[in-house]
């Protein structure tokens, strides 16, 4: 197995593991910035941040799968010296892009709740006049 074939194999395994963990989104520690504390459950006070735990778990999964792939290709290279066939390279590349595309679609899909939520006006300060509720503007 050539070095470039090994890289494709490792990249594919790491990406598949990353996409699987990222999409399944298992329970991971959440950071609560107002407390400056981590909690696995939603027991923290104030806003929680799940991005760190989710990203860390998925990257760890990708790293472990990549290491397994490295060991497997290193062992295989001792006995197998033929390069991957072009059709195999195409197939593995297609699987990689399908996994990445599906994960990207999952990310967009799971955030749609924010796009259908009705905005609420901010609480007015006591001394503020009643007609000064903020309006969102964009593209300025």
């Amino acid at each position, binding site marked *: 197995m050539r*070095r*470039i074939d090994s*890289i*494709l194999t*490792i*990249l594919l395994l*790491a*990406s598949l593991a*990353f996409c699987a963990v*990222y999409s399944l989104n298992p329970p991971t520690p959440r*950071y609560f*910035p*107002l407390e*400056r504390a981590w909690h696995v459950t939603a027991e923290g006070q*104030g*806003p929680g*941040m799940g*991005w*760190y735990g*989710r*990203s860390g778990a*998925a*990257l760890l999964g*990708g790293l472990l799968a990549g290491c397994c792939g490295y060991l497997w290709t290193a062992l295989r290279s001792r006995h197998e010296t033929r*390069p991957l066939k*072009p059709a195999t*390279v*195409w197939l593995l*590349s297609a699987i*990689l*892009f399908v996994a*990445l595309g599906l*994960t*990207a679609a999952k*990310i*967009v899909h799971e*955030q*749609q*709740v*924010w*796009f259908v*939520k*009705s*905005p*609420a*006006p*901010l609480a007015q300060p006591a001394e503020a006049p009643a007609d000064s509720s*903020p*309006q*969102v*503007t*964009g*593209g*300025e």
Partner: protein
Amino acid sequence: MNPVVLEDLNRLLLFIHLVAGITCVASSVHLLLRSARAVWGGGTYQPQVKLHAVTLSAAYLTTVFLGGLIYPVFRVHVRLAYLDAVAPWATGLFEIKELMATLGVIPVLGILALSRVLDFRHEEHRVYAPLFAGLAGFVMGIVTFNAWCGWYLGTLGPA
């Protein structure tokens, strides 16, 4: 209320995050164009492809890391205090941006690894050229979307 972690350094970190983000956009566009030219026009751009791959990797990882550092301040002072209530769609846009950024980490590392061994002039390597260009296009899509998103969310505010 206790200050959020790294609140004092937020402006500096945000500025470096911006510079690294701009570098990401520039290097990803250059990488895609050079790799596409190398695929269809021969291997004359081999050194440039390697240079852009290294630049993109360094800038991308820096941007994601700094984004993680400045996220708590944004979460408390922008998202909690304003976006979640007044512009929930903007929160959704920001969440997509953050999650997409992590999705690009392994493809960026793949681009870096492939660029070290891929020789577009080598006939046996040419089968890998579409994979490399595809990864470059995927990462460019993420960084341009994230750059637009970061700019656009920065324009939101009370009128």
